[in-house]
């Protein structure tokens, strides 16, 4: 009995140590980047234009490029994702078609980003003659985040109680009115969670973006202009050794953006869970 108690103590200590180690890695990465990057941040760095190929000056075009590109991608993917989720959960039973849709969504989620980059390059950039541009990058990212949006929206829609739909239908509302006025407003926090997850992924993406949106370091004037996102800018600075200080500064802004998106997502999810519990 004592032996079993002792072996349990050892096992639990080892498991706890592994958990602490994982947490330490998270803390190390965040502290490492912020410690070196935060001192680089200044109004000029955040809102200034680059000088000397990014060796000096600011990264304003990259910040604009990152958010415009990500928001365009989500603007394209969101109606498709929510529409798919509404169709799957409200308008059909399990059929061959829905199984094909689900299977296709799963496959799409498993494709690595470099393949999206390859595809976006041949299809949007070359075949459709969009060139390296905001629109080519946004369409590629939109396909990439579509599975996330479909899944989170479907979960959110299915969590709306069936009785609410029945009440709406029983007072004479059409199916579409019910979806529009009862189901979607109540599924909104879950859908927003999906949007935030997609936003985080788009902000950090590099491989799919560098081959489709290009790396022009100027403020875009239209959707057919090439942009450079923060992640791409960071990659170029770090890989070509342009400026380690600016690289750390860019990494800090990038990590802070992603952290902000994550914290917001977590807060939204908690609100959702509390509402469900009520």
């Amino acid at each position, binding site marked *: 009995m004592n032996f*079993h*108690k002792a*072996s349990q103590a050892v*096992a*639990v200590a*080892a*498991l*706890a140590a*592994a*958990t602490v180690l*994982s*947490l330490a890695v*998270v803390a190390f*990465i*965040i502290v*490492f*980047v912020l410690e070196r990057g935060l001192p680089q941040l200044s109004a000029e760095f955040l809102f200034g234009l680059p000088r000397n190929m990014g060796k000096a000056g600011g990264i304003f075009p990259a910040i604009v490029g990152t958010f415009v590109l990500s928001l365009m991608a989500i603007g394209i993917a969101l*109606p*498709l994702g929510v*529409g*798919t989720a509404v*169709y799957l959960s409200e*308008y*059909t039973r399990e059929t061959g*078609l829905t199984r*094909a849709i689900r299977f*296709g*969504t799963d496959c*799409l989620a*498993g*494709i*690595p*980003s*470099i*393949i999206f*980059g*390859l*595809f976006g390059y*041949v299809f949007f950039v070359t*075949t459709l003659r969009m060139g390296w541009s905001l629109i080519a990058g946004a369409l590629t990212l939109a396909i990439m985040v579509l*599975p996330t949006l*479909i899944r989170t929206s479907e979960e959110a829609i299915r969590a709306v109680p069936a009785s609410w739909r029945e009440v709406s239908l029983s007072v004479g509302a*059409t*199916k*579409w009115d019910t979806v529009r006025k009862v189901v979607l407003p109540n599924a909104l926090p879950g859908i927003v969670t999906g949007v935030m997850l997609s936003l*985080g*992924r788009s*902000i*950090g*993406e*590099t*491989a799919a973006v560098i*081959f489709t949106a290009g790396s022009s370091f100027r403020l875009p004037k239209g959707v057919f202009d090439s942009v450079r996102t923060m992640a791409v800018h*960071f*990659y170029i600075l*770090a890989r070509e050794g342009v400026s380690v200080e600016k*690289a750390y500064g860019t*990494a800090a802004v990038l*990590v802070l953006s*992603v952290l902000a998106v994550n914290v917001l997502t977590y807060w939204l999810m908690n609100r959702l869970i509390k509402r469900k519990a009520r």
Partner: protein
Amino acid sequence: MTGGSDALVRRLLAAIACTAVLCLLVIALFIFKEGLPFLFKVGLGNFLLSSDWRPDAGKYGILSMIASSLWVTFGALLVGAPLGMAGAVFLSEFSPTGLVRFVKPAIELLAGIPSVVFGFIGVMVLAPIIRNAGGGPGLSILAASIVLGVMILPTIMSISIDALAAVPPSYREGALALGATRWQAVRMVVLKAASSGLVAGAILGMGRAIGETMAVIMVAGNAIKMPDSVLDSARTLTANIALEMGYATGLHRQALFATGIALLVVIMILNGLAAAALRRRGTGT
């Protein structure tokens, strides 16, 4: 009239719902359209069974890259799976419930950190340590394995936590009632019941590791040769595509798409294994 518009909405939504499948088909079509002619011209044997990659000399062998991808992926699994699963077991079975709500989102932050940042930290921190301690170039399979292992940790941990949560409490109670300690109950009953879910998590983590590109380019060193030690520099399938896509033309460019096909096939095999493992959980135990 309203019934008519409802039918219209239904048809519109059905069309929207097909976009994901349509995208998948178009992606497959274009990747294969660019890559397949190359395979017929160069031959599957010269492509898959040779390690000689010199596009300027018409040599397109990717065997060393397939091997490098597998080394790096299994290395990542050796790092990420024990950490992720141990964390999951500790949080699900041995810790107060409040702790999970704090620790899980903290570790899931890792999933949000951009891969270029992971790669950069690997270059700045890990590579010098490996170079000083073990010799070799530092930018190596070992460095890539550790970086990727950390990157797949949140995937493995979340899925493992779900798998453990799916084991009915009565299994634990039964074991404890027979006089087992909590650790014995976990080791002999809970882990067995959750095993297929744990395996599925590990395989999904592998899928992520093998598809990762930017972090690997930065830390693996990218040398084109058959790896024979974890301290060797290596070029993976994904790195090969990303490094040469910028300037490749003609047959060389087609070869990169064929590399993409090879990558997709490997991933499809891994996903098939994960699906089989999950199905076993659905019917068995």
